[in-house]
């Protein structure tokens, strides 16, 4: 179980990005974190995974608790060893390495211990990777790269996977496939999932609980059913008006702007 208690994150000693954010990810659940561009979703994940340091960011207040222990001062490498694995935004496969080498890199913390055991499982989720096994990862399609990025996480056998916008730039059919597999990973392996998304509709379909953040704070949270019933959420995040029709993009933008200004 992961708990963020009122965390504050500052980049380069001056840019305050998270302003007292709290959330909870219970063991074995899928929790979605939604919000518009620049809300601080990726920053939240990096605050957990220890990847803020290379970007000159720091958790300056509050605490990050993992199974009751504070992990806010840990290096990224130690966080992975504690069982938390972040799949970064934009896939970030090792372009010049083959698919196989990428998977072995994901397996790094285990020293190759369960590589042979995990490989068939990875292929059971993403069979396409089997055909691409020896290929240079940089030449895979965007969807295949996302599959590889998630598989790399599986190779580390983490207790929790944090996914940063896995739907980014992918065709709708592929996105559905990826989300189905996220659900499967969660139910078959019991892996806890913290899912950051812009695609609110899909995220709400798979999540057990949803947080919505705006400019560095959580502004709303609840089960997908509760949030679905919330008129604001329907307006701002699902792009539906009261009758359930899609609103025009301009109206949504207008609403978002007003909402920002209010918070």
């Amino acid at each position: 179980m992961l708990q963020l208690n009122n965390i504050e994150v500052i980049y380069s000693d001056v840019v305050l990005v998270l302003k007292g954010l709290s959330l909870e990810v219970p063991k074995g659940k899928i929790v979605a974190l939604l919000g518009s561009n620049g809300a601080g979703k990726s920053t939240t994940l990096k605050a957990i995974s220890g990847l803020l340091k290379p970007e000159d960011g720091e958790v300056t207040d509050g605490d990050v608790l993992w199974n009751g222990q504070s992990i806010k001062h840990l290096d990224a490498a130690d966080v992975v060893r504690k069982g938390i694995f972040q799949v970064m935004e934009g896939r970030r496969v090792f372009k010049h390495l083959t698919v196989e080498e990428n998977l072995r890199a994901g397996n790094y913390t285990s020293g190759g211990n369960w590589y042979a055991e995990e490989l068939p499982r990875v292929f059971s989720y993403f069979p396409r990777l089997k055909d691409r096994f020896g290929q240079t990862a940089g030449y895979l399609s965007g969807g295949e790269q996302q599959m590889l990025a998630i598989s790399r996480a599986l190779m580390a056998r983490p207790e929790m996977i944090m996914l940063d916008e896995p739907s980014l730039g992918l065709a709708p059919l592929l996105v559905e496939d990826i989300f189905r597999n996220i659900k499967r990973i969660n139910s078959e392996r019991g892996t806890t999932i913290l899912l950051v998304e812009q695609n609110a509709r899909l995220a709400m379909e798979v999540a057990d609980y949803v947080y919505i953040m705006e400019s560095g704070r959580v502004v709303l949270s609840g089960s997908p059913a509760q949030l679905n019933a919330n008129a604001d959420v329907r307006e701002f995040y699902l792009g539906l008006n009261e009758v359930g029709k899609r609103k025009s993009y301009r109206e949504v933008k207008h609403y978002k702007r007003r909402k920002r200004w209010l918070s």
Partner: protein
Amino acid sequence: MENFIQLTISGIASGAILALVALGFVLIFKSSDVINFAQGEFLMVGGYMTYVMLAWVGLPWFIGVPIAILLSAAIGVAIEQGILRHMIGEPIISVIMVTVGVSILLRAILGLIFGNAPLAFPDFVPNYPVNVLGARVGVDKLLAILFSLLLFGALTIFFRRSSEGIAMRAVADDQQAAMSMGISIKKVWAVAWAIAGMTAAVGGTLLAAIIGGVGLDIAHIGLIVFPVVILGGLDSIPGAVVGGLVVGLLQSYAGGYLPPQLGLSEVAPFVVLVLILLVKPYGLFGTTRIERV
């Protein structure tokens, strides 16, 4: 014809040694973006370490040389941890100046300990001539080629198959993503400097054995490392090998066939370097950026 074969074999032998030094340079550059101007001095350090083990301590070569290699690797790690680690995040030009400083320091320390005159190297590598395709060639050069090949083979397996080796390539590819897999960047840097110290020590020992002496001037080979790595493309390991061979052969042929008073053997690599860079600005094997979104 005999002359040609002799020149070719000396060219390959010195090319292989150059390639070893260049390999360390490329590894450090790939894993930490540091341009190490002390790479030639590493070679010199390696040569002196072997000298100490054989001439002073009096060990047989098959024990003394491995110890010298390990000590050189340790010196590489010590320089990384003691000096360069503190330069993380500093401007690239400051980091370069620090490596220049390290090179001067190493020379000064070795000069203090061993004096400035070259020392005769213990005669532990056989150097009687053997017959290769009808030409008489020193067996020491053949051994230099053989040992370099073995080391390259071992390193290739390390980078392709071992999990540490793959981690190093992952860091070179995308540092932050590598960190997100739990790969420790600090460890990778230390390993890169250790390998750089090690390959330079092997190169320095082979070079000193062929020349028959070790002196501060063997660090000059550090200058030739630049055409080698730039030719191969700063960040390519096969490039370092091919670059080393090309430069070694060029020097050897230029020295053997062109009038010696022109001193062209030193200049030839740079001339070819400029010509190749005109055609291939990233070097022969430089990373072509894979762009796919």
